[in-house]
Protein backbone atom coordinates (compact mmCIF):
# COMPACT_ATOMS: atom_id res chain seq x y z
CA UNK A 1 0.00 0.00 0.00
CA UNK A 2 2.89 2.25 0.78
CA UNK A 3 4.08 1.60 -2.73
CA UNK A 4 0.84 2.75 -4.30
CA UNK A 5 0.82 5.71 -1.96
CA UNK A 6 4.33 6.71 -3.05
CA UNK A 7 3.50 6.10 -6.68
CA UNK A 8 0.46 8.38 -6.53
CA UNK A 9 2.03 11.07 -4.40
CA UNK A 10 5.22 11.39 -6.44
CA UNK A 11 3.80 10.45 -9.81
CA UNK A 12 4.65 13.74 -11.59
CA UNK A 13 8.17 13.83 -10.22
CA UNK A 14 8.82 10.21 -11.17
CA UNK A 15 7.49 10.78 -14.64
CA UNK A 16 9.74 13.78 -15.17
CA UNK A 17 12.66 11.67 -13.96
CA UNK A 18 11.63 8.83 -16.24
CA UNK A 19 11.67 11.31 -19.11
CA UNK A 20 15.23 12.26 -18.19
CA UNK A 21 16.29 8.62 -17.99
CA UNK A 22 14.76 7.82 -21.36
CA UNK A 23 16.16 10.91 -23.05
CA UNK A 24 19.61 10.14 -21.72
CA UNK A 25 19.30 6.53 -22.89
CA UNK A 26 18.01 7.31 -26.36
CA UNK A 27 20.56 10.03 -27.10
CA UNK A 28 23.42 7.92 -25.77
CA UNK A 29 22.36 4.88 -27.73
CA UNK A 30 22.08 6.80 -30.99
CA UNK A 31 25.57 8.19 -30.45
CA UNK A 32 26.82 4.80 -29.31
CA UNK A 33 25.49 3.16 -32.46
CA UNK A 34 27.40 5.64 -34.61
CA UNK A 35 30.57 5.16 -32.53
CA UNK A 36 30.05 1.41 -32.58
CA UNK A 37 29.72 1.23 -36.36
CA UNK A 38 32.77 3.45 -36.89
CA UNK A 39 35.05 1.63 -34.45
CA UNK A 40 33.63 -1.77 -35.33
CA UNK A 41 34.53 -1.09 -38.97
CA UNK A 42 37.96 0.09 -37.84
CA UNK A 43 38.48 -3.26 -36.18
CA UNK A 44 37.61 -5.32 -39.25
CA UNK A 45 39.31 -2.92 -41.68
CA UNK A 46 42.66 -4.68 -41.67
CA UNK A 47 44.29 -1.23 -41.54
CA UNK A 48 46.70 -1.35 -38.60
CA UNK A 49 46.51 2.23 -37.27
CA UNK A 50 42.71 2.17 -37.35
CA UNK A 51 42.62 -1.18 -35.60
CA UNK A 52 45.02 0.14 -32.97
CA UNK A 53 42.88 3.22 -32.32
CA UNK A 54 39.79 1.05 -31.95
CA UNK A 55 41.57 -1.36 -29.63
CA UNK A 56 42.85 1.39 -27.36
CA UNK A 57 39.40 2.96 -27.15
CA UNK A 58 37.68 -0.33 -26.41
CA UNK A 59 40.29 -1.45 -23.87
CA UNK A 60 40.10 1.82 -21.94
CA UNK A 61 36.32 1.75 -21.76
CA UNK A 62 36.10 -1.92 -20.88
CA UNK A 63 38.88 -1.68 -18.34
CA UNK A 64 37.44 1.16 -16.26
CA UNK A 65 34.17 1.52 -14.33
CA UNK A 66 31.46 3.69 -15.80
CA UNK A 67 31.32 5.78 -12.65
CA UNK A 68 34.99 6.67 -12.89
CA UNK A 69 34.53 7.47 -16.57
CA UNK A 70 31.70 9.81 -15.57
CA UNK A 71 33.94 11.59 -13.06
CA UNK A 72 36.71 12.00 -15.60
CA UNK A 73 34.38 13.38 -18.25
CA UNK A 74 32.46 15.69 -15.95
CA UNK A 75 35.03 16.93 -13.43
CA UNK A 76 38.29 16.03 -15.11
CA UNK A 77 37.60 17.48 -18.50
CA UNK A 78 36.12 20.67 -17.14
CA UNK A 79 39.23 21.21 -15.02
CA UNK A 80 41.63 20.59 -17.87
CA UNK A 81 39.73 22.59 -20.46
CA UNK A 82 38.68 25.46 -18.22
CA UNK A 83 41.67 27.61 -19.33
CA UNK A 84 40.28 27.35 -22.86
CA UNK A 85 36.98 28.75 -21.68
CA UNK A 86 35.21 25.40 -21.64
CA UNK A 87 32.46 24.67 -19.18
CA UNK A 88 29.87 21.90 -19.18
CA UNK A 89 27.52 24.57 -17.88
CA UNK A 90 27.50 26.25 -21.29
CA UNK A 91 26.44 23.16 -23.16
CA UNK A 92 23.77 21.58 -21.02
CA UNK A 93 25.71 20.84 -17.85
CA UNK A 94 25.86 17.47 -16.15
CA UNK A 95 23.18 16.21 -18.45
CA UNK A 96 25.39 16.59 -21.52
CA UNK A 97 28.42 15.24 -19.70
CA UNK A 98 26.38 12.21 -18.70
CA UNK A 99 25.19 11.63 -22.24
CA UNK A 100 28.72 11.94 -23.58
CA UNK A 101 30.04 9.44 -21.03
CA UNK A 102 27.31 6.94 -21.65
CA UNK A 103 27.72 7.28 -25.42
CA UNK A 104 31.44 6.63 -25.20
CA UNK A 105 30.84 3.72 -22.85
CA UNK A 106 28.12 1.98 -24.85
CA UNK A 107 29.94 2.83 -28.09
CA UNK A 108 32.87 0.62 -27.11
CA UNK A 109 30.62 -2.34 -26.35
CA UNK A 110 28.65 -1.73 -29.54
CA UNK A 111 31.89 -1.72 -31.52
CA UNK A 112 32.67 -5.18 -30.22
CA UNK A 113 29.14 -6.38 -31.02
CA UNK A 114 29.38 -4.98 -34.54
CA UNK A 115 32.84 -6.45 -35.11
CA UNK A 116 31.55 -9.83 -34.01
CA UNK A 117 28.50 -9.51 -36.23
CA UNK A 118 30.55 -8.64 -39.29
CA UNK A 119 33.07 -11.40 -38.67
CA UNK A 120 30.26 -13.93 -38.32
CA UNK A 121 29.23 -13.34 -41.93
CA UNK A 122 30.68 -15.91 -44.31
CA UNK A 123 33.78 -14.65 -46.14
CA UNK A 124 32.22 -15.74 -49.42
CA UNK A 125 29.68 -12.92 -49.14
CA UNK A 126 32.38 -10.26 -49.36
CA UNK A 127 34.14 -12.18 -52.13
CA UNK A 128 30.98 -12.49 -54.17
CA UNK A 129 30.19 -8.81 -53.76
CA UNK A 130 33.72 -7.74 -54.63
CA UNK A 131 33.93 -10.03 -57.64
CA UNK A 132 30.84 -8.31 -59.05
CA UNK A 133 32.89 -5.13 -59.05
CA UNK A 134 31.40 -3.54 -55.93
CA UNK A 135 33.97 -1.46 -54.03
CA UNK A 136 34.68 -2.43 -50.39
CA UNK A 137 32.47 0.28 -48.87
CA UNK A 138 29.48 -0.56 -51.04
CA UNK A 139 29.89 -4.27 -50.44
CA UNK A 140 29.98 -3.56 -46.72
CA UNK A 141 26.89 -1.34 -46.79
CA UNK A 142 24.75 -3.37 -49.15
CA UNK A 143 25.77 -6.93 -48.46
CA UNK A 144 27.63 -7.40 -45.18
CA UNK A 145 26.09 -4.90 -42.75
CA UNK A 146 22.43 -5.67 -43.49
CA UNK A 147 23.12 -9.33 -42.72
CA UNK A 148 25.34 -8.56 -39.76
CA UNK A 149 22.71 -6.30 -38.19
CA UNK A 150 20.22 -9.12 -38.21
CA UNK A 151 22.47 -11.43 -36.29
CA UNK A 152 23.55 -8.61 -33.99
CA UNK A 153 20.04 -7.48 -33.10
CA UNK A 154 19.70 -9.53 -29.88
CA UNK A 155 23.10 -8.34 -28.60
CA UNK A 156 22.35 -4.75 -29.55
CA UNK A 157 19.06 -4.75 -27.69
CA UNK A 158 20.79 -6.37 -24.75
CA UNK A 159 23.26 -3.49 -24.81
CA UNK A 160 20.32 -1.06 -24.91
CA UNK A 161 18.99 -2.62 -21.72
CA UNK A 162 22.38 -2.44 -20.04
CA UNK A 163 22.81 1.20 -21.04
CA UNK A 164 19.36 2.05 -19.82
CA UNK A 165 20.22 0.68 -16.39
CA UNK A 166 23.64 2.35 -16.51
CA UNK A 167 21.97 5.76 -16.59
CA UNK A 168 21.40 5.08 -12.91
CA UNK A 169 25.15 5.35 -12.23
CA UNK A 170 25.33 8.67 -13.99
CA UNK A 171 23.11 10.16 -11.29
CA UNK A 172 26.39 10.57 -9.39
CA UNK A 173 27.02 13.91 -11.13
CA UNK A 174 23.59 15.20 -10.15
CA UNK A 175 21.30 14.44 -13.05
CA UNK A 176 17.75 14.06 -11.78
CA UNK A 177 16.87 10.83 -13.50
CA UNK A 178 14.99 7.95 -11.86
CA UNK A 179 17.64 6.95 -9.35
CA UNK A 180 18.59 10.48 -8.33
CA UNK A 181 14.89 11.29 -8.02
CA UNK A 182 14.45 8.33 -5.69
CA UNK A 183 17.37 9.52 -3.60
CA UNK A 184 15.90 12.99 -3.24
CA UNK A 185 12.46 11.73 -2.30
CA UNK A 186 13.87 9.17 0.11
CA UNK A 187 15.90 11.87 1.83
CA UNK A 188 12.66 13.66 2.69
CA UNK A 189 10.58 10.71 3.86
CA UNK A 190 12.72 8.32 5.84
CA UNK A 191 9.81 6.10 6.88
CA UNK A 192 8.98 5.21 3.27
CA UNK A 193 12.46 4.26 2.10
CA UNK A 194 11.62 0.72 1.07
CA UNK A 195 8.50 1.73 -0.83
CA UNK A 196 10.32 4.51 -2.64
CA UNK A 197 13.11 2.28 -3.89
CA UNK A 198 10.68 -0.43 -4.90
CA UNK A 199 8.87 2.14 -7.01
CA UNK A 200 12.16 3.18 -8.60
CA UNK A 201 12.98 -0.47 -9.30
CA UNK A 202 9.53 -1.02 -10.81
CA UNK A 203 10.05 1.83 -13.25
CA UNK A 204 13.27 0.25 -14.52
CA UNK A 205 11.74 -3.20 -14.54
CA UNK A 206 8.80 -2.14 -16.67
CA UNK A 207 10.87 -0.40 -19.35
CA UNK A 208 13.50 -3.13 -19.50
CA UNK A 209 10.86 -5.82 -19.79
CA UNK A 210 9.22 -3.90 -22.59
CA UNK A 211 12.57 -3.65 -24.36
CA UNK A 212 13.11 -7.39 -24.07
CA UNK A 213 9.70 -7.99 -25.58
CA UNK A 214 10.55 -5.66 -28.43
CA UNK A 215 13.77 -7.63 -28.86
CA UNK A 216 11.80 -10.84 -29.25
CA UNK A 217 9.52 -9.34 -31.88
CA UNK A 218 12.45 -7.84 -33.78
CA UNK A 219 14.34 -11.12 -33.68
CA UNK A 220 11.40 -12.92 -35.20
CA UNK A 221 10.93 -10.20 -37.82
CA UNK A 222 14.50 -10.30 -39.05
CA UNK A 223 14.86 -14.02 -39.64
CA UNK A 224 14.39 -13.91 -43.40
CA UNK A 225 13.25 -16.40 -46.02
CA UNK A 226 14.96 -19.32 -44.27
CA UNK A 227 12.98 -22.46 -43.72
Amino acid at each position, binding site marked *: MAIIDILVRYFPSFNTALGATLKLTVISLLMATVLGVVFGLFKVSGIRPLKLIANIYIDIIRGTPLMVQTMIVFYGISQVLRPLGFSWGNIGGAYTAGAVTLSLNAGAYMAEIIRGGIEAIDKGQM*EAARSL*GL*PYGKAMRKVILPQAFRTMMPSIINQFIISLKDTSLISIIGIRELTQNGKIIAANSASMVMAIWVVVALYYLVICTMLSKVALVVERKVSYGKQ
Partner: protein
Amino acid sequence: MESSKISVQNLKKSFGKLEVLKGISVEVAEGEVVCLIGPSGSGKSTFLRCLNRLEKITAGEVIVDGHPISDPNVNINKVRENIGMVFQHFNLFPHLSVKENITLAPTELNRMNKEEAEGKAMELLDRVGLHDKADAYPGQLSGGQKQRVAIARSLAMNPDIMLFDEPTSALDPEMVGEVLEVMKQLAADGMTMVVVTHEMGFAREVADRVIFMDDGCIVEEGTPEEIFSHPKEERTISFLNKVL
Protein backbone atom coordinates in the same frame (compact mmCIF):
# COMPACT_ATOMS: atom_id res chain seq x y z
CA MET B 1 49.73 -12.90 -77.66
CA GLU B 2 47.79 -9.72 -78.46
CA SER B 3 44.57 -11.61 -78.99
CA SER B 4 44.70 -13.34 -75.59
CA LYS B 5 41.75 -12.61 -73.35
CA ILE B 6 43.72 -13.77 -70.36
CA SER B 7 47.48 -13.85 -70.28
CA VAL B 8 49.32 -15.23 -67.28
CA GLN B 9 53.10 -15.16 -67.10
CA ASN B 10 55.02 -17.06 -64.44
CA LEU B 11 52.36 -16.51 -61.76
CA LYS B 12 53.46 -17.34 -58.24
CA LYS B 13 51.38 -17.31 -55.11
CA SER B 14 52.44 -18.06 -51.57
CA PHE B 15 50.46 -18.18 -48.36
CA GLY B 16 53.15 -17.35 -45.85
CA LYS B 17 55.89 -19.92 -46.41
CA LEU B 18 53.67 -22.26 -48.37
CA GLU B 19 54.09 -21.83 -52.11
CA VAL B 20 50.79 -22.77 -53.73
CA LEU B 21 51.49 -21.67 -57.30
CA LYS B 22 55.00 -22.20 -58.54
CA GLY B 23 55.13 -20.27 -61.78
CA ILE B 24 52.08 -20.73 -63.97
CA SER B 25 51.86 -19.44 -67.52
CA VAL B 26 48.60 -19.69 -69.43
CA GLU B 27 47.03 -17.92 -72.38
CA VAL B 28 43.29 -18.01 -72.92
CA ALA B 29 41.90 -16.83 -76.24
CA GLU B 30 38.61 -15.02 -76.68
CA GLY B 31 35.69 -17.45 -76.65
CA GLU B 32 37.85 -20.30 -75.41
CA VAL B 33 36.65 -22.66 -72.70
CA VAL B 34 39.47 -23.88 -70.51
CA CYS B 35 38.92 -26.51 -67.84
CA LEU B 36 41.34 -26.88 -64.95
CA ILE B 37 41.51 -30.32 -63.43
CA GLY B 38 43.74 -31.85 -60.82
CA PRO B 39 43.81 -33.23 -57.29
CA SER B 40 42.64 -31.04 -54.41
CA GLY B 41 45.40 -28.82 -53.10
CA SER B 42 46.99 -28.61 -56.53
CA GLY B 43 46.35 -24.84 -56.70
CA LYS B 44 43.55 -24.80 -59.29
CA SER B 45 41.20 -22.65 -57.24
CA THR B 46 43.97 -20.35 -56.09
CA PHE B 47 44.99 -19.86 -59.71
CA LEU B 48 41.41 -19.00 -60.65
CA ARG B 49 41.11 -16.57 -57.75
CA CYS B 50 44.27 -14.80 -58.88
CA LEU B 51 42.57 -14.02 -62.19
CA ASN B 52 40.29 -11.46 -60.54
CA ARG B 53 42.65 -10.79 -57.67
CA LEU B 54 40.53 -12.32 -54.95
CA GLU B 55 43.97 -13.59 -54.00
CA LYS B 56 46.85 -11.16 -53.94
CA ILE B 57 49.42 -12.09 -56.55
CA THR B 58 52.84 -12.80 -55.08
CA ALA B 59 54.83 -12.61 -58.31
CA GLY B 60 54.35 -12.77 -62.04
CA GLU B 61 52.04 -11.03 -64.44
CA VAL B 62 48.32 -11.47 -65.00
CA ILE B 63 46.70 -9.53 -67.82
CA VAL B 64 42.95 -9.87 -68.24
CA ASP B 65 41.29 -8.13 -71.16
CA GLY B 66 44.31 -5.86 -71.50
CA HIS B 67 44.25 -4.84 -67.83
CA PRO B 68 47.32 -5.72 -65.79
CA ILE B 69 45.59 -7.28 -62.77
CA SER B 70 48.90 -7.83 -61.06
CA ASP B 71 49.61 -4.07 -61.10
CA PRO B 72 48.55 -2.63 -57.71
CA ASN B 73 47.49 0.63 -59.38
CA VAL B 74 44.94 -0.93 -61.68
CA ASN B 75 41.31 -0.07 -60.85
CA ILE B 76 40.45 -3.59 -59.81
CA ASN B 77 36.74 -2.85 -59.29
CA LYS B 78 36.43 -1.72 -62.89
CA VAL B 79 38.21 -4.83 -64.17
CA ARG B 80 36.09 -7.13 -62.00
CA GLU B 81 32.90 -5.76 -63.54
CA ASN B 82 33.99 -7.51 -66.66
CA ILE B 83 34.86 -10.85 -65.05
CA GLY B 84 32.01 -12.92 -63.71
CA MET B 85 32.77 -15.39 -60.95
CA VAL B 86 30.77 -18.38 -59.77
CA PHE B 87 31.66 -20.02 -56.47
CA GLN B 88 31.42 -23.53 -55.16
CA HIS B 89 29.13 -22.39 -52.33
CA PHE B 90 27.08 -20.02 -54.51
CA ASN B 91 27.49 -17.09 -52.10
CA LEU B 92 24.09 -15.67 -52.91
CA PHE B 93 23.08 -12.75 -50.71
CA PRO B 94 20.53 -14.33 -48.36
CA HIS B 95 18.92 -11.04 -47.32
CA LEU B 96 18.00 -10.16 -50.90
CA SER B 97 15.46 -11.76 -53.20
CA VAL B 98 16.65 -13.58 -56.30
CA LYS B 99 15.86 -10.55 -58.43
CA GLU B 100 17.62 -8.20 -56.02
CA ASN B 101 20.67 -10.45 -56.00
CA ILE B 102 20.91 -9.99 -59.75
CA THR B 103 20.11 -6.27 -59.91
CA LEU B 104 22.36 -5.20 -57.01
CA ALA B 105 25.61 -4.75 -58.91
CA PRO B 106 24.22 -3.18 -62.13
CA THR B 107 22.19 -0.62 -60.19
CA GLU B 108 24.76 0.13 -57.50
CA LEU B 109 27.46 0.61 -60.11
CA ASN B 110 25.16 2.78 -62.22
CA ARG B 111 25.32 0.49 -65.20
CA MET B 112 21.55 0.42 -65.48
CA ASN B 113 18.56 2.09 -63.89
CA LYS B 114 16.18 -0.01 -61.84
CA GLU B 115 13.81 -0.89 -64.68
CA GLU B 116 16.59 -1.86 -67.05
CA ALA B 117 18.27 -3.96 -64.39
CA GLU B 118 15.01 -5.74 -63.56
CA GLY B 119 14.34 -6.37 -67.23
CA LYS B 120 17.82 -7.80 -67.57
CA ALA B 121 17.33 -9.91 -64.44
CA MET B 122 14.14 -11.45 -65.79
CA GLU B 123 15.83 -12.14 -69.11
CA LEU B 124 18.72 -13.88 -67.33
CA LEU B 125 16.36 -15.85 -65.11
CA ASP B 126 14.60 -17.01 -68.26
CA ARG B 127 17.91 -18.12 -69.61
CA VAL B 128 18.71 -20.22 -66.55
CA GLY B 129 15.13 -21.49 -66.35
CA LEU B 130 14.13 -19.78 -63.11
CA HIS B 131 11.70 -17.14 -64.28
CA ASP B 132 9.21 -18.04 -61.56
CA LYS B 133 11.75 -17.66 -58.74
CA ALA B 134 12.39 -13.93 -59.14
CA ASP B 135 10.78 -13.04 -55.82
CA ALA B 136 11.98 -16.05 -53.87
CA TYR B 137 14.80 -15.78 -51.36
CA PRO B 138 17.95 -17.87 -51.69
CA GLY B 139 16.97 -19.87 -48.60
CA GLN B 140 13.94 -21.18 -50.47
CA LEU B 141 15.92 -22.56 -53.42
CA SER B 142 17.61 -25.90 -53.99
CA GLY B 143 21.36 -26.03 -54.51
CA GLY B 144 21.08 -26.32 -58.26
CA GLN B 145 18.67 -23.41 -58.40
CA LYS B 146 20.98 -21.33 -56.21
CA GLN B 147 23.91 -21.95 -58.49
CA ARG B 148 21.88 -21.04 -61.55
CA VAL B 149 20.88 -17.78 -59.86
CA ALA B 150 24.53 -17.18 -59.03
CA ILE B 151 25.39 -17.60 -62.69
CA ALA B 152 22.62 -15.19 -63.67
CA ARG B 153 23.91 -12.74 -61.08
CA SER B 154 27.40 -12.69 -62.53
CA LEU B 155 26.02 -12.37 -66.06
CA ALA B 156 24.08 -9.24 -65.10
CA MET B 157 27.20 -7.12 -65.51
CA ASN B 158 27.62 -8.41 -69.09
CA PRO B 159 31.08 -9.84 -68.41
CA ASP B 160 33.40 -10.93 -71.20
CA ILE B 161 34.91 -13.64 -69.08
CA MET B 162 33.40 -16.10 -66.63
CA LEU B 163 35.34 -17.90 -63.93
CA PHE B 164 33.84 -21.00 -62.34
CA ASP B 165 35.30 -22.35 -59.10
CA GLU B 166 34.06 -25.93 -58.75
CA PRO B 167 30.50 -24.84 -59.51
CA THR B 168 28.96 -28.27 -59.04
CA SER B 169 31.04 -29.65 -56.16
CA ALA B 170 28.57 -28.64 -53.45
CA LEU B 171 25.53 -29.95 -55.30
CA ASP B 172 23.53 -33.11 -54.85
CA PRO B 173 24.24 -35.37 -57.81
CA GLU B 174 20.81 -34.95 -59.35
CA MET B 175 21.30 -31.18 -59.54
CA VAL B 176 24.66 -31.19 -61.27
CA GLY B 177 23.12 -31.61 -64.72
CA GLU B 178 20.97 -28.49 -64.64
CA VAL B 179 23.96 -26.31 -63.76
CA LEU B 180 26.23 -27.89 -66.36
CA GLU B 181 23.47 -27.37 -68.92
CA VAL B 182 23.49 -23.62 -68.28
CA MET B 183 27.28 -23.58 -68.55
CA LYS B 184 27.20 -25.49 -71.82
CA GLN B 185 24.78 -22.92 -73.19
CA LEU B 186 27.13 -20.14 -72.15
CA ALA B 187 30.05 -21.86 -73.83
CA ALA B 188 28.02 -22.33 -76.99
CA ASP B 189 27.22 -18.60 -76.94
CA GLY B 190 30.93 -17.86 -77.17
CA MET B 191 31.71 -16.85 -73.58
CA THR B 192 35.36 -17.01 -72.56
CA MET B 193 35.36 -19.42 -69.63
CA VAL B 194 37.85 -20.77 -67.15
CA VAL B 195 36.37 -23.63 -65.17
CA VAL B 196 37.86 -25.44 -62.21
CA THR B 197 35.97 -28.70 -62.17
CA HIS B 198 35.82 -32.31 -61.11
CA GLU B 199 33.25 -33.05 -63.80
CA MET B 200 35.43 -34.88 -66.28
CA GLY B 201 32.46 -35.51 -68.55
CA PHE B 202 31.81 -31.80 -68.79
CA ALA B 203 35.48 -31.03 -69.40
CA ARG B 204 35.65 -33.62 -72.15
CA GLU B 205 32.49 -32.41 -73.84
CA VAL B 206 32.71 -28.64 -73.52
CA ALA B 207 36.34 -27.64 -73.03
CA ASP B 208 38.48 -26.43 -75.89
CA ARG B 209 41.48 -27.09 -73.75
CA VAL B 210 42.08 -29.02 -70.54
CA ILE B 211 44.85 -28.12 -68.13
CA PHE B 212 45.99 -30.67 -65.57
CA MET B 213 47.56 -29.12 -62.50
CA ASP B 214 49.38 -30.76 -59.65
CA ASP B 215 51.42 -29.35 -56.79
CA GLY B 216 51.23 -25.73 -58.00
CA CYS B 217 52.41 -26.44 -61.53
CA ILE B 218 50.83 -27.16 -64.88
CA VAL B 219 51.71 -30.76 -65.58
CA GLU B 220 50.04 -31.18 -68.91
CA GLU B 221 47.64 -29.36 -71.18
CA GLY B 222 45.93 -30.11 -74.42
CA THR B 223 42.61 -30.81 -76.08
CA PRO B 224 40.21 -33.00 -74.09
CA GLU B 225 41.03 -35.79 -76.49
CA GLU B 226 44.76 -35.48 -75.81
CA ILE B 227 44.39 -35.28 -72.04
CA PHE B 228 41.69 -37.87 -71.50
CA SER B 229 42.52 -40.38 -74.21
CA HIS B 230 46.26 -39.99 -74.63
CA PRO B 231 47.72 -38.50 -71.49
CA LYS B 232 51.50 -38.40 -71.59
CA GLU B 233 52.55 -37.55 -68.06
CA GLU B 234 52.69 -40.14 -65.33
CA ARG B 235 50.86 -37.87 -62.85
CA THR B 236 48.04 -37.16 -65.30
CA ILE B 237 47.58 -40.85 -65.95
CA SER B 238 47.48 -41.75 -62.29
CA PHE B 239 45.02 -38.92 -61.52
CA LEU B 240 42.71 -39.88 -64.36
CA ASN B 241 42.81 -43.49 -63.31
CA LYS B 242 41.54 -42.47 -59.91
CA VAL B 243 38.70 -40.24 -61.07
CA LEU B 244 37.46 -41.87 -64.27
